């Protein structure tokens, strides 16, 4: 392993975490707007505490798994996770499915909480706390998975953790300064890039787990990124007319 792997790991963790943190912040802000910061903050804190418990509980077991099995397992999970993201990003870029809109998600979450407020006034703070807890826990779990996946196989957990932490801090600072969801974040472009990176890492680690001696070792990841990028761009171009034909 060379230090060349640290940069893609840090970048993948940063970009992936940026998207997840923005999604969590959208729900957190919606809860805070409707019910105030107390239930929103309480839920977020509980979510972070649960995440910390999961990381502390699962983390030590990673060292006990033989490296090639860890690489194979993580590689397959990365392929499932990364190609799922890339597929969705391609379909969105081609106009087959609608783009994810944080402003719309914020409006929908806020409307949902207002509706619940009308029906269930006494229980609302509890529901608001749970909404905030779920958002932080679920999006946080995705961040933890991305960090473990891109970092653990190549012993770059620290680089990946730094990337994820930077993204979370950046989203928090910008989101709280603006007091609104990061609607201008080019989410599909980010998902596209992260999907390419995670898929490339997935092929690399799965191959390493199977004993494939990739030419160029870690540098092969960059080649895989290029191939996935070219294939994804071609897929967008090919899927766009098909989607238009099918609709018309």
């Amino acid at each position, binding site marked *: 392993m060379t230090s060349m792997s640290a940069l893609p790991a840090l970048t993948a963790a940063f970009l992936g975490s940026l998207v997840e943190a923005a999604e969590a912040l959208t729900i957190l802000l919606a809860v805070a707007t409707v019910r105030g910061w107390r239930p929103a903050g309480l839920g977020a804190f509980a979510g972070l505490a649960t995440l910390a418990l999961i990381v502390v509980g699962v983390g030590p077991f990673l060292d006990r798994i033989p490296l090639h099995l860890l690489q194979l397992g993580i590689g*397959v*999970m990365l*392929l*499932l*996770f990364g*190609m*799922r993201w*890339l*597929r*969705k990003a*391609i*379909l969105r870029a*081609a106009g*087959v*499915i609608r783009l994810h809109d944080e402003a719309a998600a914020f409006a929908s979450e806020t409307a949902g909480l207002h509706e619940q407020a009308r029906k269930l006034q006494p229980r609302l703070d509890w529901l608001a706390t749970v909404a905030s807890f779920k958002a932080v826990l*679920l999006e946080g*779990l*995705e961040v933890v*998975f991305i960090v473990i996946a891109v970092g653990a196989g190549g012993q770059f957990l620290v680089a990946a953790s730094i990337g994820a932490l930077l993204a979370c801090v950046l989203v928090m600072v910008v989101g709280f300064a603006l007091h609104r969801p990061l609607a201008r974040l080019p989410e599909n472009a980010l998902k596209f890039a992260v999907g390419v990176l995670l*898929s490339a890492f*997935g*092929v690399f680690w*799965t*191959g390493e787990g*199977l*004993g*494939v*001696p*990739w*030419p160029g070792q870690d540098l092969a990841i960059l080649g*895989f990124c290029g*191939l*996935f990028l070219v*294939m*994804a761009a*071609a*897929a967008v171009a*090919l*899927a*766009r007319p*098909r*989607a238009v034909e*099918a*609709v018309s």
Partner: protein
Amino acid sequence: MTALVRLLRVLGGLFVDDGSLALAIIAIVGLAAGVAALAPAHPLAAGGVLLSGCLAVLLGNVLRAARRRGAPGGKRF
């Protein structure tokens, strides 16, 4: 129990969105593992199967999804 099932479903959803894509990926990994086991003298062959298989599976899945879009009774995303 319901909460646990819901949590497991959410966790599964992190990896599986379109079942056919997930199954195809697993099949490609299985095929690459088979090639690695049957041809240990040519380990790069397994890598070739894995890489080209993943690219092909993704392209095929996206094009199928684009074709299905808008068709009567077609899948909604």
